[in-house]
């Protein structure tokens, strides 16, 4: 915040306010776009719809508390819930409905014209909007997981043991990492395709969920395989998993968990940069 011209008002940055090369600093652009996007996202009806979807695991937890505690302990119940409901359904749903519109809403709504007629880096605009959807999507899932945790332990403190805390923390972190990765993938689709929702659904069903269970090395090219590889089950927990869940959580090839973590973080960075690159170069016909 240095250049202050009484006629121009307070401006941010060090060079002349009217310098033709001077775009807004990247961090400032990301921050402003992020703030506005979060505000916009929390006011959308989409939040209510996804919030309702995220009640499903809570409902199942209540059912478990009433009928299932004698058959399945907390650790095993949560491992099933995390694998079947969160990773196989809710992560995809939330990522798709927040990732695709990350910038596609601005393109379709033609409001992008306001951002493109400001001295802003297009990459920074993309990153700001992506971070906003990742924040809201991550908070939604984190809130659902937190409420789920409370429902499981309130009046049932005996359920809390080290194994449960490990499994819960493991799923919590993997779910968050998954939603960050998938929103970046879907945001890239939102910048590149005219019907990104269709491409997103295709990606989920035709690639991630199908290829990741094909018994060949090809499955290692899916994000889901690496996410599964991060689920650090104890043998007895894995043995108790529902066969359906186990099918999706089994990993045929060996790779250390940190290898998968590195690949997922690299994928997150690559998809983010690729989305920003496409967004910066593609020409959108705005009004």
């Amino acid at each position, binding site marked *: *915040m240095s250049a202050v011209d009484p006629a*121009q*008002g*307070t*401006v*941010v*940055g060090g060079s002349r*306010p*009217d*310098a*033709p*090369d*001077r*775009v*807004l600093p990247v961090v*400032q*652009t990301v921050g*402003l*776009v992020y703030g*506005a996007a979060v*505000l*916009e996202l929390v*006011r*959308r009806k989409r939040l209510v719809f996804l919030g309702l979807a995220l009640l499903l695991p809570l409902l199942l937890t209540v059912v478990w508390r009433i009928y299932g505690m004698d058959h399945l302990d907390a650790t095993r119940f949560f491992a099933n819930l995390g694998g079947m409901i969160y990773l196989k359904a809710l992560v995809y749903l939330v990522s798709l409905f927040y990732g695709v519109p990350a910038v596609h809403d601005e393109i379709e*709504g*033609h*409001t992008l*014209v*306001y*951002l*493109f*007629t*400001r*001295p*802003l*880096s297009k990459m920074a605009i993309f990153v700001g909007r992506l971070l906003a959807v990742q924040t809201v999507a991550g908070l939604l899932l984190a809130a659902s997981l937190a409420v789920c945790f409370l429902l499981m332990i309130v009046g049932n403190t005996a359920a809390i043991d080290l194994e449960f805390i490990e499994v819960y923390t493991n799923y919590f972190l993997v779910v968050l990492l998954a939603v960050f990765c998938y929103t970046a993938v879907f945001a890239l689709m939102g910048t590149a395709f005219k019907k990104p929702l269709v491409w997103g659904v295709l990606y989920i069903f035709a690639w991630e969920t199908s290829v990741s269970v094909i018994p060949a090395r090809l499955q290692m090219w899916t994000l889901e395989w690496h996410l599964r590889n991060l689920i650090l089950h104890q043998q007895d927990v894995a043995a108790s998993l529902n066969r359906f869940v186990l099918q999706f959580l089994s990993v045929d090839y060996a790779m250390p968990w940190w290898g998968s973590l590195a690949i997922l973080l690299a994928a997150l960075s690559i998809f983010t940069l690729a989305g920003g690159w496409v967004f910066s170069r593609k*020409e959108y*016909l*705005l*009004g």
Partner: protein
Amino acid sequence: MNGPSPSSRVTLATEELSRWYGQVIGVNDVTVSITPGVTGLLGLNGAGKSTLFKVMAGQLTPSKGVVRVLGHDLFRHRGLFRRIGFVAEADALYESMTGREMLVYLTRLQGFSRAEARRRADAALERTHLSDDADRTVRGYSKGMRQKIKLAQALAHDPEVFFLDEPFNGMDPVSRREAMELVVRLGEEGKTVLVSSHILHEVEAMTSRILLMHRGRILAEGDIGEIRDAVERHPHRIEIRCDQPRALAPRFIEMEEVQGVRVESEKILLVESDLPREVFRRLPHLALDASLGIHSWTTLDDDLKSLFEYLVEDGR
């Protein structure tokens, strides 16, 4: 009339600017030089005005040619957007924000601090007569208010160059007049304002400097009076409503500037003249003759479409 306007300070210029979409040419070899003040960009729907605006305002890259804003190539200096105010034709707004939130956000994106952006947003809201509705969500705005908030976001950072693409569409007469006065004031303040419209009298009310666009090209450039004079070299049709068209016809036949007279109906006489101003000058005197019963007269060729038809014909 063709070629750049003479000026000591060109703030906005294009050089051999073309833009095509596949096989379709949107803008074709446009070279213009625009100086501070209001310049009207006139053209029929589909003439290429919006494409030219989008290219000049940096929204579409040119297929060929250069856009210079304040002497710099716009596509090499994104920082120039600090000095540009753009009103797009599309009815696009941040629907979930209030008018004030939207303006503060967009002004902060120009590099102003929160407090300064707030002050500027309030000033822009005041200038566009939107202060009373500033805290309502944009979703509830009328069409006219939506146009005003678009104008306000272009004003708030006090740019030197404005691109206003059909800014008065959907405004009620009072808002339209206020907005047109605002545009005139911007011109008087030394801003460069390029405003597009397909309504001739709307542009005439703001400026005499126009660019006429037709099929992607600049058909004519300059003072609207000069263009009108050029148009007036062609015969104009003047429709006169009167009680005695047959009695009135000989009075026109004897005028040198009249090329033809035709009785259209029992109440309408059609006069063709290559000097319509002279005919209009004489008409009030004829109207004083009560026996002719002249009720009204109008030129059938004073609309934009006719203007283009004449100019296209003239260019052949």
